[in-house]
């Protein structure tokens, strides 16, 4: 309760007005010129972590634009949303990057999408904008049609040049030799020694946030679900939580438990896939192939019990669409255990191999301070000793009711730690699925709450833990109950900036391995 009071005290000092409601983020509005100091104080006094930074266009004549900062206050289970209206004649604000280094990407993105500029930011390059866009085109503004075409130009984006004789650049992507999504890594090396890495994205930006505007929740659900393959459940869940949050409803218990099962099934096949991917990164064919076999079996289980390999079309706002029943779920739990046992024996082969150990250990160190500073999330951060997990920190759905479970952390900070992190999480996942199946009420209660007409101007926020970390969604509705702003911030978006800090000084052939140890998603950035 004291933390609660602290937040309330903080809000009363800094904000113009504020709301505190149960099961909703704290909300306060701060003047633009006080924003930086307010957040500075939030960081120092409340230990806040920047979870999301985005902007809104209200589409009206006056006070059209505002900035939206969503902070994670670790001591409480709630988030803190701060909105800052911007004067119409001066769309600038003081850069938050010196305070939260992970604000750099969103600031660049906000400038490209809204034309709102951060002052004194160290990185002024465009993020989404690629060369040929007209200078005054800001896609997320309300006066831009979602269906307009964007000119394409094949240009090399600028990067910070390493000064020194003989230093060369290696461009990797956006078109790769393998089946990899389009990211561009500009690597500067001297021979095989890696000096600097610059990751650039948005080569296949789909404008999902723009497309969602004007749709009702069920229409936008399709977009949220298809933003990315391997985080389908998590993204949908975040979306649904945000809608439910805005509507002020909670899901029935059966749906809450099924959602846990779905989220954990997704985590399970992702972790198995990541383990195989790390083995592939060092060319360890046996472990890779066997791991991929297990992943395939898990995805077939997904398809067999929930109708879709990526577990799509199950979660809907208000609950779930259907589920196979308790007996089949018990059967499923029995199928999972042998797969995990086989995984253990395969992994034992890998870990017993000295080359495997040598390649993974002390490679790609993500220091704890870097992970903290850049606000890393998910297994990557947990492998560097940062204990952060949305399931515990901000429990949602079934995670609120299920008995406590442990979130392991590791302290070696290297690729091996991230490899083992996934292994460590699998028992928890299995236990959660088992517990959720056991606690599933037998009585035939509804599996989805109906979504009432959403009040004009209401908004909601949802955050879930995917296999890569915290995925957040902010949704605001217009006067007709249609989506006015849909903002997504995924775990990959937060974790990509971690990679350049880990690869420096490693050798070039180890970069794919380090990259695979994070196994981040490109589509989640190019949403």
């Amino acid at each position, binding site marked *: 309760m004291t933390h609660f009071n602290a937040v309330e005290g903080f809000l009363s000092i800094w904000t113009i007005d504020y709301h505190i409601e149960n099961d909703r983020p704290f909300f306060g509005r701060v003047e633009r010129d006080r924003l930086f100091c307010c957040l500075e104080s939030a960081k120092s006094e409340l230990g806040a972590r920047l979870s999301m930074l985005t902007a809104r266009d209200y589409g009206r004549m006056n006070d059209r634009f505002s900035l939206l900062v969503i902070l994670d206050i670790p001591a409480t289970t709630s988030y803190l949303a701060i909105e800052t209206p911007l004067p119409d004649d001066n769309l600038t604000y003081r850069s938050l990057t010196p305070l939260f280094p992970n604000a750099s990407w969103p600031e660049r993105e906000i400038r490209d999408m809204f034309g709102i500029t951060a002052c004194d930011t160290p990185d002024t390059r465009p993020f989404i904008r690629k060369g040929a866009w007209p200078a005054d085109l800001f896609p997320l503004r309300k006066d831009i049609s979602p269906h307009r075409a964007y000119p394409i130009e094949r240009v090399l984006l600028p990067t910070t040049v390493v000064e020194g004789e003989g230093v060369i650049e290696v461009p990797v992507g956006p078109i790769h030799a393998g089946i990899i999504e389009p990211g561009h890594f500009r690597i500067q090396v001297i021979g095989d020694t890696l000096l600097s890495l610059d990751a650039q994205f948005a080569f296949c930006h789909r404008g999902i946030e723009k497309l969602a505007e004007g749709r009702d929740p069920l229409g936008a659900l399709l977009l949220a679900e298809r933003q990315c393959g391997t985080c389908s459940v998590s993204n949908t869940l975040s979306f649904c939580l945000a809608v439910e949050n805005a509507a002020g409803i909670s899901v029935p218990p059966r749906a809450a438990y099924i959602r846990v099962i779905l989220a954990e099934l997704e985590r399970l096949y992702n972790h198995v896939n990541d383990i195989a991917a790390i083995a592939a990164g060092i060319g360890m064919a046996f472990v890779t192939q066997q791991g991929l076999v297990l992943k395939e079996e898990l995805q077939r289980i997904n398809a067999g019990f929930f109708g879709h390999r990526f577990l799509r079309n199950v979660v809907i706002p208000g609950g779930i669409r259907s589920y196979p029943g308790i007996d089949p779920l018990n059967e499923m739990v029995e199928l999972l255990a042998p797969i995990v046992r086989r995984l253990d024996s395969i992994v034992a082969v890998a870990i017993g191999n000295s*080359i495997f150990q040598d390649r993974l250990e002390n490679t790609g160190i993500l220091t704890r301070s870097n992970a903290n500073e850049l606000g890393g999330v998910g297994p990557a951060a947990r492998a560097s000793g940062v204990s952060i997990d949305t399931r515990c920190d901000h429990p949602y759905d079934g995670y609120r009711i299920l008995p406590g479970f442990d979130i392991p952390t590791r302290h070696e900070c290297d690729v091996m730690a991230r490899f083992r992190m996934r292994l460590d999480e699998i028992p928890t996942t299995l236990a959660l699925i088992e517990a959720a199946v056991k606690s599933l009420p037998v009585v035939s209660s509804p599996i989805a709450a109906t979504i009432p007409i959403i009040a004009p101007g209401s908004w909601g926020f949802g955050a879930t833990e995917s296999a890569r970390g915290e995925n957040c969604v902010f949704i605001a509705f217009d006067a007709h109950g249609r989506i006015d702003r849909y903002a997504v911030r995924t775990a990959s978006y937060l974790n990509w900036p971690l990679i350049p800090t880990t690869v420096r000084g490693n050798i070039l052939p180890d970069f794919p391995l380090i990259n695979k140890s994070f196994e981040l998603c490109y589509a989640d950035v190019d949403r």
Partner: protein
Amino acid sequence: MLTGIAFAIRLLIKIAALAILAPLIQGCIKQFKGRLQGRHGPRLLQPFFDLIKYARKEQVISRETSWVFSAAPLFSFAAVLTAALMVPWVDRSPWPFPADLILFVYLLAIPRFMMALAGLDAAGSFGGMASSRESAVSALAEPVLLLSLLTIALPGGSLHLEAIPVAANSLPLAARAGGLAAIAFYCVVLAEIGRIPVDNPDTHLELTMIHEGMILEYSGPLLGLLHFTHWIKQITLLVLLFNVFIPIGMMVESTGAWTAIIFSALIAVVTFLAKMITAIALLAITETWLAKLRLFQMMDLLGFAFVLSITALLFVATGV
């Protein structure tokens, strides 16, 4: 005159055998590797189909390249073919032209030299990266290649490749020294033919390629030629490994009764095929079981091989 004709016939037979076996062995390795990893693997004759496909494709050549780009595969092919013709396959009777092992080692250096240049030619960083790595790896591989062969050849007094098996057969210490040298030689073979743990032949991950990186810009017939060259080099080194270090079953003399000759030739061919099957299994198992070494750990592997060869040399020198 008669020896000249016989020589020409043997040369032609060998070239024909190379043309058939080199792609076939590649196909077998891939197939077996696939099986070991729980996949079906490509079919055995796939390398032949690949070659035909390459031959019929148009060539796509970078505008950055110079004459080196087209010359490199030709030089490599010529050198590897010459080296391949020097290695005894089924019989140990001397070749009319001397097949000196120093010459052999240096002939194999030609493709590395040429391909390293070709990698630099297209001005891309992937080719250059691969060239630089290849040069670094082969610089370490070359002394081991020479020393491991030398330790077996030295006691016999002749450096001719067809004489080495004879020498190795007749020496009591061959088992000890030869075993060590064979392991060393095998490490070098893995490095030379670009297999795990040194290079990953199946990867096209841009940043980890060595051999694939140098040939990245090639296409069509030239790419086919490069693959063919690589397969010839592969079979040559494998044959050398087995014929030098396990010199059993090879035909010795082509005199005597016709039946005896045919019988011994038959035995020699069967042994040869058995050796090749063992080689395929060995490579496939190695590649499935090991992971790729860290780039600069290659020094450790090849250093280990070097130490093994020195130990073998110690046995040979002291005659223990």
